[in-house]
């Protein structure tokens, strides 16, 4: 078991003929994931990597291939439209990898998605991986841009706003012989589709996930909200890390969401919320896996 996606998940890629989307679609295919369709308006009828059919619209791709998840690799000016096209086509999950989408576009996307059955992950996220059974976790479901081989099939759920920090946690687990159920990057933007808490709830309900690593960063209050829920509801051990203790207030640290304003969203406040909720706090990013393993 896993959350959101598994080895059988049928994936379509919007922007598959672009260099970024194409490269990562290729890597997902090489990982053994079921990339069944691509969408690039005007390029319908072509084949990607000689095997994957390309369609003009998401609706056609879904009708022809039964894809249930769309990965968005289209450039920022067109990303909001691409997300809503996938929602309109009725896919279960949209994973928006695109970095640099205007915030107001995402405000509109979020409002437009009210009441739809589609879940959005991202934008500005590394995507998600459910590791497979094969060598270097081959045969799993890789959607997005994470390196597949660092994973190992197992029972730890990982959720994070940051890409490379997720890889760091996953790699710490894998090198200690501990595998992962699913690893989810929810993205670093201030308006995103899925929160830490949404993912934690799914991990809590997944019988195959036995422990959770939650990686947060300065800014906003999503980590505090997740911590409050964990305190009352989570049946599984959770370890966490917050990046940005040394970031100066008021400066945006790479991620648009990572900004401390008016004393809100500081690393110390978030760590305290974690401690209050019984979440193990990794004092350095080198201790994320060990902090969780000590609790299990």
């Amino acid at each position, binding site marked *: 078991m896993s959350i959101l996606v598994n080895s059988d998940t049928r994936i379509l890629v919007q922007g598959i003929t672009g260099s970024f989307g194409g490269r990562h679609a290729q890597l997902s295919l090489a990982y053994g994931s079921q990339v069944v369709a691509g969408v690039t308006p005007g390029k319908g009828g072509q084949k990607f990597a000689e095997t994957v059919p390309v369609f003009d619209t998401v609706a056609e791709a879904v009708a022809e291939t039964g894809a249930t998840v769309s990965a968005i690799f289209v450039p920022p000016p067109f990303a909001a439209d691409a997300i809503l096209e996938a929602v309109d086509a009725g896919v279960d999950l949209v994973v928006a990898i695109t970095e640099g989408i205007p915030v107001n576009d995402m405000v509109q996307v979020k409002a437009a998605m009210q009441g739809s059955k589609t879940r959005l992950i991202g934008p500005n996220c590394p995507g998600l991986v459910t590791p497979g059974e094969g060598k270097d976790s081959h045969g799993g479901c890789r959607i997005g841009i994470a390196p597949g081989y660092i994973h190992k099939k197992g029972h730890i759920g990982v959720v994070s706003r940051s890409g490379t920090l997720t890889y760091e946690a996953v*790699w710490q687990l894998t090198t200690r012989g501990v595998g992962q159920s699913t690893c989810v990057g929810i993205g670093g933007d201030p308006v995103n589709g899925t929160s830490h808490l949404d993912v934690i709830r799914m991990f809590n309900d997944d019988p195959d996930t036995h422990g959770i690593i939650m990686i947060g960063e300065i800014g906003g209050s999503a980590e505090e909200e997740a911590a409050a829920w964990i305190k009352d509801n989570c049946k599984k051990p959770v370890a966490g890390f917050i990046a940005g203790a040394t970031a100066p207030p008021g400066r945006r640290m790479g991620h648009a969401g990572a900004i401390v304003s008016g004393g809100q969203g500081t690393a110390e406040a978030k760590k305290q919320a974690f401690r209050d909720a019984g979440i193990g706090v990794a004092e*350095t990013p080198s201790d994320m896996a060990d902090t969780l393993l000590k609790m299990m």
Partner: protein
Amino acid sequence: MNIHEYQAKEVLARYGVAVPPGNAVSTVDEARSVAADLASQGHTKLVIKSQIHAGGRGKGTFTDGFQGGVKLCNTVDEAADIAGRMLGNTLVTKQTGPDGKQVNKVLIAAAEEILKEFYLAVLLDRACSKPVIMVSTEGGMDIEEVAEKTPEKIIKEWVNPGLGLMPYQARKLARALGLTGSLINQAVKLFIGVYNAWWKSDGALVEINPLCIVRKPDGSESLTAVDAKVSFDDNALYRHKDLAGLRDITEESPLEVEAGKYDLNYIKLDGNIACLVNGAGLAMATMDIIQYYGGSPANFLDVGGGASKEQVTAAFKIILSDPNVEGILVNIFGGIMQCDIIASGILAAVEETGLSLPLVVRLEGTNVAQGKKLIEESTLDVISADSLADAAQKIANAVKQAS
């Protein structure tokens, strides 16, 4: 992207927001002519405001001892004199840091009689992903202090992004501020104008503090944006070419501007250990672990997912132009990037820049063994590290020993 007060007022005025009459100038002659114009319109009091991207101007001090970056005066001669003292001078406020900022423009405006002060802001409420407009009767105060001590004095109205700010919402806010009579309709026009300016120009923040009821020369009362702060969402500037032109590069750190040319995300800090990392989250975490092991980070630097040799070389040059740097930590999780390619990029950059400071490199990911081998076999003085903790300890120790 931040802009100056005078630019913010120009943007707001386009959306029908009332601002005090005035103009920004960069010479004493222009100052005299603007002041004379205002005087001829019947304005007996003028205000001269230093234009820098930092708050606390009124209580600031110029490096030559001249007090106050915002000054009131009564005559054209005085206005020209004050403008002359400010222009080209360097203003230090609680927000500029000890070096202060050079004043290249001053805003000369009518200082109308203020009858009442309010606060107004529009921004994104991250918690619900909706725009929020906030007003308060506590105008002219530090709003963060108001939020902490008397949160009930901040009134919020959330906006449906499909509809925009509705007039009934604006009327609610106007009444919450205690406005009556014709001032209610003035407030509706102003609030909707401010919201539209924020939404249509992809603002990050519009803040008007204070928003004032002022008495015009003809005796009427007017709701006016006496100060204004506007910043924009960088990701949306591609569709606002006119607003992008408002950028004042002299207000930004030269190293950060240089980094931007190479798509590097660099922010200078005060420490002595520089870091070069791929990914924003990992870059922040690397700064944190440097501090944890007794060092002090000199910068945030995210080279992005697919850093090229040119980017790595540019990054080294930028890091090395900070005179406080005494050591460098490179931390790359080469997920998709290959570590051997990164390693040769680093070695080339070290050679090209003639690096003489301690350098610790931690590589992880694809082809990591080949990457480490390249570094270990190099005749250059590069210390290889195994984990993030190992790397942070090694660079902190190396810097301690060298000093």
